[in-house]
């Protein structure tokens, strides 16, 4: 392998909690995964409680808000019955949680109020989720090589003019909220250059992929915000590794600079970079909410804002829970990648 950090410890460790060691000893990665999953489930359980309590304390009683200005005492009562609002909070929480575990997301309060044929939440979130996944997915796929490439260049050239330009730009962009970045992009690419539309121009039932020009500015907004963070972290990792003696040793041993950087420096700075990439992926989950609203992009972020406004509580809870799950999964996957990248972690009991 040639990676100096790989001080592989092939032997089983004799010490460790007995209950876990059998699995952990034979398959340390599985043990690690098990523990991470357990922690993930615990996190989601706490998240579910918080989400439920938060939607409970939103001002106004749900039925009359959902029914709007034309609510009557009778219709409010009827809707409260359908939403089971007459039952206690713990009961409703357990009901909702049980439904989630069995894949039943429940009914949208608004759809019930309107007497829709299929009031299920599931029927309402498919298309927005797909749209958001496309937006975040494209941004992510472009982000990884760009952040790594620019971060490596910046780190290797640390202290040189190119590094200053890249780092300072990243710092500046990083300080800007998404809607400001979006506004700048709109001014440049629509008002001045007239290249891309400043708002999304497709309707329900259409795929964003059929309207790629509409995707450009939302993707760029997410990308700019993400790269600004990613670049600086990757650069920091590279600079850190560059300081190690083995890098100097390798260079003194006569390895070419290119070989030293790619095989020694980059490889060893990967672990923190993966964590950064995971953080950015998780950021995208939140970043789409603002970006979607600026560009009027029909995704899950806009659905969430609408649901909060209309007190469509079940929809808010489900969407928030889905976003939380994605967030936790991304972090678990990132942890696993780190484990695979650093052989030491693969065999030891972290």
């Amino acid at each position, binding site marked *: 392998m040639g990676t100096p950090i790989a001080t592989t410890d092939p032997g089983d460790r004799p010490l460790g909690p007995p209950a876990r060691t059998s699995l952990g000893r034979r398959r340390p990665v599985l043990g690690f995964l098990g523990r991470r999953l357990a922690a993930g489930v615990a996190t989601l359980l706490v998240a579910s409680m918080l989400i439920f309590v938060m939607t409970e304390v939103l001002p106004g009683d749900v039925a009359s808000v959902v029914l709007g200005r034309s609510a009557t005492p009778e219709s409010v009562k009827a809707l409260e019955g359908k939403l089971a609002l007459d039952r206690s909070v713990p009961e409703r929480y357990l009901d909702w949680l049980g439904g989630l575990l069995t894949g039943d997301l429940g009914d949208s309060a*608004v759809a019930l109020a309107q007497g829709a044929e299929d009031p299920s939440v599931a029927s309402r979130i498919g298309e927005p989720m797909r749209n958001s996944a496309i937006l975040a997915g494209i941004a992510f796929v472009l982000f990884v090589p760009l952040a790594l490439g620019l971060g490596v260049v910046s780190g290797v050239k640390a202290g040189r003019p190119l590094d200053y330009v890249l780092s300072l730009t990243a710092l500046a962009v990083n300080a800007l909220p998404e809607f400001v970045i979006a506004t700048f992009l709109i001014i440049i690419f629509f008002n001045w250059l007239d290249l891309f539309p*400043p708002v999304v121009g497709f309707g329900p039932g259409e795929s964003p992929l059929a309207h790629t020009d509409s995707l450009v500015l939302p993707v760029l907004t997410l990308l700019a915000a993400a790269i600004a963070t990613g670049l600086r972290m990757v650069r920091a990792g590279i600079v850190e590794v560059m300081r190690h003696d083995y890098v100097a040793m390798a260079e003194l041993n006569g390895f070419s600079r290119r070989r030293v950087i790619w095989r020694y420096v980059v490889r060893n700075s990967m672990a923190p970079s993966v964590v950064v990439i995971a953080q950015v992926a998780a950021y995208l989950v939140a970043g789409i909410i603002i970006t979607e609203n600026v*560009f*009027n992009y029909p995704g899950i972020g806009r659905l969430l804002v609408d*649901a909060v406004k209309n*007190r469509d509580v079940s929809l808010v809870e489900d969407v928030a829970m889905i976003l939380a799950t994605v967030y936790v999964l991304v972090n678990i996957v990132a942890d696993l990648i780190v484990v695979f990248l650093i052989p030491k972690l693969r065999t030891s009991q972290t």
Partner: protein
Amino acid sequence: MTDPGMHDASGLTRRRLIEFGAQGAIGLTAGGWLAGCGGAKQKLSSTATPAATPKRGGELVMSMITGGSTETLVPGLAVSEPDIARAELLFDPLFRLDPDLGAAAAVAESAEPNADGTVWTVKIRDGVVWHDGKPVTADDVVYSINSWADKKQNYTAATIARVVDVKGVRKRDARTVEVPMRLPVGDFPILTAFYGFAVLPNGATPKEILKNPVGTGPWKFKSFKPGARSVFTANKDYWVHDGPYLDQLTVDSSFTEEPARLNSLLSGQSQVMQAMPFALARREKTARQIKLLEATGTSFQCFAMRTDKGPLADKRVRQALRLLADRKAFVDQILNGFGEAGDDLPSRGAKYYAEDLKREQDIDQAKSLLKAAGQEHLTVRLDTSNVLDGLVDASTLYQQQAKQAGVNVKINRIDPGTYFSVTPGRWLSYPFSTTFWVNGTASLSLFYLNALSKAAPYNETGWKDPAADKLLMEAIGTVDEKQAQDKWHEVQQLQFDEGGYLVYANQAYVDGLAKEVNGLEPSKAAWLSGFGLHNAWLA
């Protein structure tokens, strides 16, 4: 009487079409509009630029602020602006408001009262057909009136049951319906010239309408997704100039942000921006990238003071609070000039509005009234919310104005999502609050029945005086125009002296149009020339 300014030769005090074409030919455009206005009073089909012949064909996208997933196609349940727009596009009432707030015949050809206004005979226009090709019959109209009043449906038109003897409505022949009243009604057409009174096919339930709305309106239904898009095709059988000039119309009600809507218009993804925020409109007036369609009608912003209980039950205190308002400041600062000062009376511009009752800021008189009421150091809570852009700013402005008389107004901001919920502690129980009226203000009868009578469903000011109710019913029931004018003056004088509304301004309807959009003239009835859009055409 309407504002005398309306009747002067220029007519430009209240209604302006401001166009910033390449030549910036404002005078020329105004002249063109005036020429078009002559025809507007007789029918709805006049165009803004008479020199140009309307072109047929093309599509148009109209952007609106979203009503979210609660949007509907059922006219009687319409709440958000996209709902109202769709009701106006798909359906027709018996009468529609014309640009000068008169009742123009729509599905009805005419409506005639008997001598005392207790029975109105409605004649259905010959040749009006549903979108499926069937003719509109008296049965449809009888059903429609019944469904408006049906308590189970909870339609906004339910007020009609207070004046119409719904059970007694009957068909006389295939095209004639007799509408008996519970009390004399002087002007039935204007009372029903409102989107909530859409004429529905016989037997149509809300569920059926939501699935496949069949109306008589200028546009036929193609598709609808709440909070996203609805698409309509031209109804070539429409009774005005063989239907809309355009082939297709899309209502994009997916917008949550105003700048996104403006960007959509500027980038050509939409051609019509309904209800532009005043600040953006002010900017676009100088930016000159788009046309503005602007008219001040009967829509107003106000504060509602509870007259029956709480700190403002003393009419001297209410009068004092009214005298503290500097109305011009509201127009300039809150409406960016897009509107007119109010005089505490609802529905300025409507027929029989008491134009002679004026109120100006008078701090000294306010102080002496407060002193007389023993409230020299009055502290009062003002409930407010940005349900409409600028309402909180308006409250802050009033707070400053009230300080001059030593009145301490404490602003209480409430979440916009629940501000208009009819629950204890919310709407209809605020002692002193900001509010506004956009729809249902063009007819004094309809507005007073809805908001200013004992049984009014939206009685924000708690106005319950039996004597006032009696006077109101007399005014509604007066057929003779001269007498009706006098009666309505009495009704409004009482409101002016004792009522709970502090109407500080009438707000304009302002729309943004792409330069290629023609045919829409300013209308005092609503945005976009009354929403029908059958007159719109693309250059």
